């Protein structure tokens, strides 16, 4: 079936697009920037900000690009002086009642009003009258702060509530310049997608309570990653200030997997990466029944000693499906292929409901790489023998257990109990990012690992699509290694002992 196309001229460039595409969509795809506020590729057309004005052929009035369908031979310009003058005044009108909140507004540095102010160039405002005042710093959701004075009434949040989450919790009340955005009386926004409102709000009207006042965004660096919160594997950007080794937030990145959005659960997946939550150094037995801090190399060496002391059938692996495919391949190629270990168990949350799905993005399998783990196991011929659960592990009679702990703890309510159970085994080496492993005194062999944003690798989401971790941050904890590095070092020690 052929899709009809239309060719039109945009800023002296001929562009061919499918029939029915608007000029704004065409410009977005072909990297021509038309300034706008209310248009968003994931929402319906509103046409209320009147900023994306363009000159079409010889029509006397300027038209808005977001609602203008491309017709063959149409000539569109965004660069004519008339268009630029229109943009200047469109910005002036937006700023007329906007409060001078930049010093205290979190959006500074990523605010569309600021960006256009610099671009469009109407630097001297002609407004010298008192501005309209509206309610500020309102609590409208568990992670939202609403400042109605900063709102430019672009309507994106209202449309998001109506079209994406279908909850309709926001509306615009009153008329004219008294119009305010808000929730209905006594109602708050209570779903799992609140922070998307913060993302789409072009100004600082909706801000995240979690991120409020923590950091100025121009100090942050972001890298692409894949959210490790569930098996959907939304593509995200992780924001950190590397000079202080601190992570601040996670935002979605547009992709086929998640569209333009991500859920609020995934937004919390930066917290466990910060130093106060991490396992910061390796720990090994001190020979007197207790444990002491050691270097990672020493911990690996002592693990090798333990492994030598038993046969392959006495060794078991307890693996969480939260690691990358590459890590699994390295792990199994040493333990299963080289050492001949056959007892491999999955570290899963017993109370999980795998079929749960909230209708948009968040799935009941709270692990990013379940599929990757089964594939890695299948590659070494173990798929059938994998058992889930700690009871199976206890029954297996293994004397040396190597456990790769789940990285994301807040979705694992059973974790403390599980760690306690592990500590009752004869010898267990827990490799983890989370500091809670250290808090269990009975765990006497620990290796600190890197978090998802700190290593390279791939996840396979619930559909088998590959999500890549390609640009890691330097680890927040000096001693941390990823599983590939640990296994490689272990193999080295093994080969030379």
């Amino acid at each position, binding site marked *: 079936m052929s899709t009809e196309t239309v060719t039109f001229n945009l800023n002296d460039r001929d562009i061919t697009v499918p029939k029915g595409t608007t000029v704004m969509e065409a410009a977005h795809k072909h990297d021509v920037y038309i300034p706008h506020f209310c248009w968003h590729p994931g929402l319906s057309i*509103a046409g209320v*900000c009147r900023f994306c004005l363009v000159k079409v052929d010889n029509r006397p009035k300027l038209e808005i690009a977001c609602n203008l369908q491309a017709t063959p031979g149409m000539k569109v310009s965004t660069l004519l002086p008339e268009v630029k003058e229109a943009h200047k005044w469109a910005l002036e009108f937006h700023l007329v009642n906007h409060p001078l909140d930049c010093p205290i507004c979190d959006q500074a540095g990523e605010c569309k009003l600021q960006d256009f102010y610099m671009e469009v160039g109407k630097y001297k405002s*002609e407004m010298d*009258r008192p501005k309209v005042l509206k309610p500020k710093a309102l609590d409208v959701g568990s992670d939202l702060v609403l400042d109605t004075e900063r709102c430019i009434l672009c309507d994106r949040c209202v449309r998001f509530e109506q079209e994406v989450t279908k909850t309709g919790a926001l509306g*615009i009340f009153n008329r004219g310049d008294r119009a305010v955005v808000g929730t209905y009386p006594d109602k708050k926004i209570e779903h799992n997608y609140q922070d998307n409102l913060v993302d789409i709000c072009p100004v600082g009207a909706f801000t995240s309570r979690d991120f409020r006042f923590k950091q100025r965004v121009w100090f942050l660096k972001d890298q692409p990653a894949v959210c490790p919160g569930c098996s959907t594997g939304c593509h995200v950007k992780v924001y950190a200030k590397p000079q202080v080794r601190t992570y601040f937030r996670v935002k979605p990145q547009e992709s086929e997997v998640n569209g333009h959005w991500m859920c609020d659960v995934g937004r919390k997946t930066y917290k466990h990466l910060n130093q106060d939550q991490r396992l910061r150094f390796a720990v090994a037995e001190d020979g007197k029944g207790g444990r002491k801090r050691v270097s990672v190399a020493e911990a690996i060496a002592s693990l090798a000693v333990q492994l030598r002391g038993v046969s392959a059938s006495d060794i078991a692996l307890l693996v969480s499906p939260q690691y990358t495919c590459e890590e699994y391949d390295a792990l199994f190629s040493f333990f299963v292929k080289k050492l001949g270990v056959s007892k491999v168990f999955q570290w899963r949350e017993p109370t999980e409901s795998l079929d749960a799905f909230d209708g948009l993005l968040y799935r009941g399998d709270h692990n990013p790489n379940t599929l990757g783990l089964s594939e890695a196991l299948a590659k070494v011929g173990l798929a059938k023998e994998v058992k889930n659960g700690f009871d199976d592990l206890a029954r297996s009679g293994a004397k040396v257990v190597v456990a790769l702990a789940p990285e994301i703890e807040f979705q694992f309510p059973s974790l403390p109990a599980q760690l306690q159970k592990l500590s009752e085994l004869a010898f267990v080496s827990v490799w983890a990012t989370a500091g809670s492993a250290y808090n269990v005194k009975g765990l006497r062999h620990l290796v600190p690992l890197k978090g998802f944003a700190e290593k390279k690798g791939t996840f396979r989401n619930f559909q088998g699509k590959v999500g890549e971790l390609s640009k890691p941050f330097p680890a927040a904890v000096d001693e941390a290694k990823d599983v590939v590095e640990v296994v490689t070092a272990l193999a080295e020690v093994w080969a030379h002992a």
Partner: protein
Amino acid sequence: MAEQKPKIILQTEGLPDQHSLKTYVEKVNGYTAVRKVLGGMSREQVIEEVKQAGLRGRGGAGFLTGLKWSFVPKDITGPKYLICNNDESEPGTFKDRYLCITNPHQVIEGMVIAAYAIGANKGYIYTRWEYQEEIGYLENAIKEAYAAGLLGKNLFGSGFDFDLDHYTGAGAYICGEETGLISSLEGKKGQPKVKPPFPAVSGYLGRPTIVNNTETLANVPWIINNGAKAFRQFGTEKSPGTKLFSISGALNKPGVYEVPLGYPFASLLNIEAGGMQAGRTLKALIPGGASAPVLTPAECEGLTMDFEAMAQRNTMLGSGAVMVIDDRQSLAELLKVTIEFFAHESCGQCTPCREGTGWLNNIMDGIMERSAKPDNIERLRTVARNMGGKTICALSDACAMPVMSYVQKFSGELQAYLAAGSGGHSK
């Protein structure tokens, strides 16, 4: 004695029980046009007749009615709607309310014919909430029509069904804009919709919809009965037919008068309206409602009441609300009231209008408080100039155009209000 004026719209005016069905049918050949239409005319013929007559919208825009009807797609299935825009909110306009009290049945008959022409089986009359008395007359007329079989199923055995409901607004000027009206009718906030798509293609509930002014629809039966050529006997070539003018001010006989388009303003003022009250002189004229640019007395020389003459003087005939401003009126106060109206009524959707009307109001407050500087008056013009032409509906232009005309023609009056010592002088 004035020559007998043609009565196309207010045919029953002055007759006993002027609003009743009985009077309409017996005295002025009521409901014969619809019988003629349903008795054998095709849709295209009806549209063609109205097109030939050159009937232009009487609500303010002056768009050719027949042309508008022809935009409705013909070959699609599913419901279509005809809406009578009786939300007469343009300040100074009170002609539709007079029509509703005087001759409501002509409106209903016009609606049936129009609905037939566009293929609609459902119609609404949308009246503003403030017109409680008029709503009573309309609802009564609808009831009479249903009782007499003039509304409902299978009208005159032709197989054409038409149901008519009355719907009341809730006090917003913006609901007089056709897509604002449609939004209100759909139960949403009365905010205009982005065009395209146009209502004729996708309007009420996404279906093809035509919205016509009350007075426009009231013209239709006469045109069908007497023909397009007869209609063109009155008025001018580009503005044929008659129009209701609601003339107000310090006059001896303010009121609603039906005169042919092209009628001289001087006659309307001095004959129909009885001239200005003793001791009063003309200071300014607002020819078409608050959104029409103001005219000086010099510009009123030789002025005729038709679309072209108004356009030539950079103003508009609009809804026919003629507001005669006499020498007692402070034009600064008049401008303030006008701007305040638009700032209050702006729906707030698009930024230039929302912020622009508010800003103009704010500046005007400063001027009225005598705390403004000279450049503030010029700023009124700058803001107004940049508000227009960029918005979803025409409210922004409706505010901007008069403001620019006041500043251009009567800035002296505004200067008097400036802060003392800043170039102004006290009044």
